[in-house]
């Protein structure tokens, strides 16, 4: 007879897997409140599967498939467009280990593919936390021009990301 894991043990396994889901979602929405809401949605959708007490390896694929579907619905609903129109590439590989610095590594890869000015504005704004005014002072430009450059840099970053 196979011994089923206790509820607590099954919960612990599920929570460890959901840590990976949370990091995956956070890396795509960039804020805690949305990441928590979406991770909770994934957990709830996956409850029947999680309760079977399946091993971590068996539920990870299912959780990430659910996470991709939940993220697709999130962007689609927030932007008011169909999922087919989404730019976001959600068909990504399932992480094999604990939360990594995937988001930072990916950002560095994208930054490396941008022109100097675009890279600089995004580094200052996002990685160093500069305000628009501070970026303008650093780049000897105006706030208005920096805003436009930031928009163009983000558009270019999205293109580098897609092409990668």
């Amino acid at each position, binding site marked *: 007879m196979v011994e089923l894991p206790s509820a607590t043990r099954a919960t612990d396994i599920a929570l460890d897997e959901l840590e990976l889901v949370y*990091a995956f979602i956070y890396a*795509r929405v960039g*804020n805690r409140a949305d990441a928590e809401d979406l991770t909770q949605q994934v957990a709830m959708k996956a409850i029947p599967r999680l309760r079977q007490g399946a091993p971590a390896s068996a539920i990870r694929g299912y959780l990430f498939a659910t996470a991709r579907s939940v993220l697709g619905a999130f962007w689609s609903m927030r932007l008011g467009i169909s999922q087919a129109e989404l730019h976001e590439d959600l068909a990504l590989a399932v992480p094999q280990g604990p939360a990594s610095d995937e988001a930072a590594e990916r950002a560095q890869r994208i930054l490396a593919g941008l022109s100097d000015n675009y890279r600089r504005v995004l580094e200052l704004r*996002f990685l160093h936390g500069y305000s628009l005014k501070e970026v303008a002072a650093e780049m000897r430009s105006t706030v208005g021009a920096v805003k436009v450059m*930031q928009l163009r840099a983000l558009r270019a970053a*999205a293109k580098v990301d897609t092409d990668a």
Partner: protein
Amino acid sequence: MPEKPENRVERIVSDLLRGRRLRLRAGDAEEKEAITAAARFAAASQGPQRMSPAFRRRLADILESTPRETWLTRRAAMIAGLGVAAGALAGGFVGRSLEPGRGAALRAPSSPVLPENGQWTDVGALADFRDGSGKLVKAGAVGAFVFRRGESVSAVSSMCSHLPCELWWEGKSGLLECPCHPVSFTADGKPSSASYTLPDLNEVKARVTDAGRVEVLGT
């Protein structure tokens, strides 16, 4: 006047850099590539993320309770005063039916919020309310936006009529905006866009007392 794309994206970048939730508006989809890239850069700037102990405990509670116990209806959330988390929660269950404007149920008229054993709650002096501007108040478990018109007041539920997400007052547009999807409502609770056929916001009973105090019917 339409919002300039650079201002549109800066508003979202600024929110993300302050750790705020993504609050998108109608028209933001035009910059969807830049917005999703901004979200990724914001995440990258904060390093690897782990769940907070409080959130982990909440998930453990959910996993160990039955799904039905955690399934919140919009009305239950409205009465309980819950916000966006409940919206996401309900969203997980109803899937495609989240899209507004489809199905007769969404066009059903909204009824006033009449809590069982409800009581009038003082939410401030009439002088504290600016004419034509929405002010969020809590009357026990009932959340409402109160609007002053001269010497009288009216109120609508602070919960979107579609998802259980708490609205916010956008002074520039003079509309109540929903953080969960690109819809907004006028001060009298009517949806502002013809393309999103949502029911009106639920009315919340409000009055001004002889002493010049504003009261809302809550719990």
